[in-house]
């Protein structure tokens, strides 16, 4: 394995870990909200979160550029204020992977939260627990396996993310070129040996993740 390969691997894992952490932070509360609350705009929120699952990743990437690019809705004011833009940095790869992975976590976690017997939550209410403590002490612990499985799926998705990352973060070797992007470059430039090594590495990693997810799945059943 040469240095470039190792850099791509390290970057991929770094991006996937951070994207998974962001997913946990945003996705679990979001899943709880969608599962438990009826509020204005709920359907729209559900739609926005789920869309990256069905849209081509390049389309999601395009929307991310419109939002976060140097001239984007959020990106432009940020650039004016700080002179910095997220586009074409490795943070962009994290954001792209997070958005692409989010629907997997939210859908899995939401199903797990919805499958918790609501009488258990009602019991906690009658025993004096406010809703947020009921969520922390009853609902989320009982939905734990589903949530963990969702996080594993999100990790796997982040690890393999290609299209949206390419759009927002580009394919800069050593900077934003994660393994899937590095594979694409290697094939394009005829470095078939390096492509094969990266493909193998990603396959092994994905297998480990899937086995882990399978374990969680059977334990929750």
């Amino acid at each position: 394995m040469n240095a470039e390969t190792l850099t791509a691997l390290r970057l991929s894992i770094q991006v996937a870990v951070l994207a998974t952490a962001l997913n946990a932070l945003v996705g679990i509360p979001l899943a709880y909200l969608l599962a438990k609350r009826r509020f204005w705009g709920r359907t729209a929120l559900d739609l926005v979160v789920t869309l990256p699952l069905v849209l081509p990743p390049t389309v999601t990437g395009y929307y991310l550029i419109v939002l976060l690019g140097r001239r984007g809705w959020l990106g432009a004011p940020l650039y004016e204020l700080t002179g910095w833009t997220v586009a074409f940095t490795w943070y962009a790869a994290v954001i792209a992977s997070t958005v692409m992975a989010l629907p997997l976590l939210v859908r899995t976690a939401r199903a797990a939260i919805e499958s918790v017997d609501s009488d258990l939550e009602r019991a906690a209410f009658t025993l004096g627990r406010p809703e947020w403590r009921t969520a922390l002490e009853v609902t989320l612990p009982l939905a734990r396996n589903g949530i963990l499985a969702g996080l594993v799926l999100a990790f796997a998705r982040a690890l393999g993310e290609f299209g949206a990352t390419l759009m927002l973060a580009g394919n800069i070797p050593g900077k934003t070129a994660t393994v899937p992007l590095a594979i694409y470059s290697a094939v394009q430039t005829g470095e078939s040996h390096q492509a094969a090594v990266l493909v193998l590495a990603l396959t092994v990693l994905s297998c480990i993740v899937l086995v882990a997810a399978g374990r969680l799945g059977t334990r929750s059943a």
Partner: protein
Amino acid sequence: MSMIGRVDLAIVKRFPGFTLDVAWTADEGVVVLFGPSGSGKSLTLRCLAGLERPDQGRIVVNGRTFFDAATGVDLPPQQRRIGYVFQGYALFPHLTVGENIAFGLRSRPRAEQRRRAAEVMERLELGGLENRAPRELSGGQQQRVALGRALAVDPDLLLLDEPLSALDAPLRRQLRDDLERTLRDWRIPAVLVTHDLSEAYQLADRVIVYDHGRVIQASSKTEFLWQPSSERVARLIDMRNLLAGTVVKAAPDRIQLRWRGQLLEAVNSPARAYLPAPGSPIAFFIRPEYVRLIRKDRMAPDDHHHMNVMRGRVVGEADQGATWSLRIRLDEPGAPVQDGYDLEVEVPSLVYEILDIKTDRFWEFSIHRGSIHVLPS
């Protein structure tokens, strides 16, 4: 803890295709909401607990207003001080028995929590089980943990939603006894939901009968069983021999009626002053165990010992263990009024054997006038 928990409730809650519109009050220890599934009993319980918000009305328990649509009062469940025993118990599966019981005590000092949980477990004979998971317990133990968890916080009112419906018959009977003992021992006012007649009768001080989202009778438990306020109530409590006759003559103390060619005399209830016009239809019921079989080896029946005498043939029978249920078809022209028979009669198994009813099919019966219960329509 006061023995008397006054519940004052008048609520309306609308759903597409179903409206709950009930009002009742109760001072008694154990109030049973009785009625068929889907009649709104559990919904009432959830409204009492604050888990469901009525559209209109008022709920006052022990002088504390839980809900009042007019003034906008709506106490959250956390502040109502009620204990709730859920259908299927809803024990926290990820916590131990001890943690389940102490769940509602979290705001108290740790030592106090432990003391109270231990005391509750001791009283409910759960000692030694504190580190078990709920799924490792028997049905009876689970019920006691659910009761203990609700009672540990000293609630003003205990609500029980079909506490025995998840169990099979023999266990159910046993747990019914346990539950009755616990309710009496803890002297706690309770509202219990059931669609099981014997459960209602055993546990209740007062019975509120629900049907299609309305209250159709509210009475003490004896009145509930012996004086159903209407034919509908009698049907709900699965009254056997619920029959339809014609009034011949009604007086405040007696009612004469005609049924299947028989002239029957029944006791009227002076208190209710039910005086239907002659010729009008009348519903009545006769409890199968109160129909007397006239023994052929004794003296001929006389008017003093036997009244409302009729003659018939056994056309069906069922062994019920301690008793036999006989289906009797009267010696009268015309089709029988119940499904192939006219009257169900229950006799002890010993009588069935001694009189050899298996082979001897023709009998005379008598019914005391006090055992024919007329039902105001």
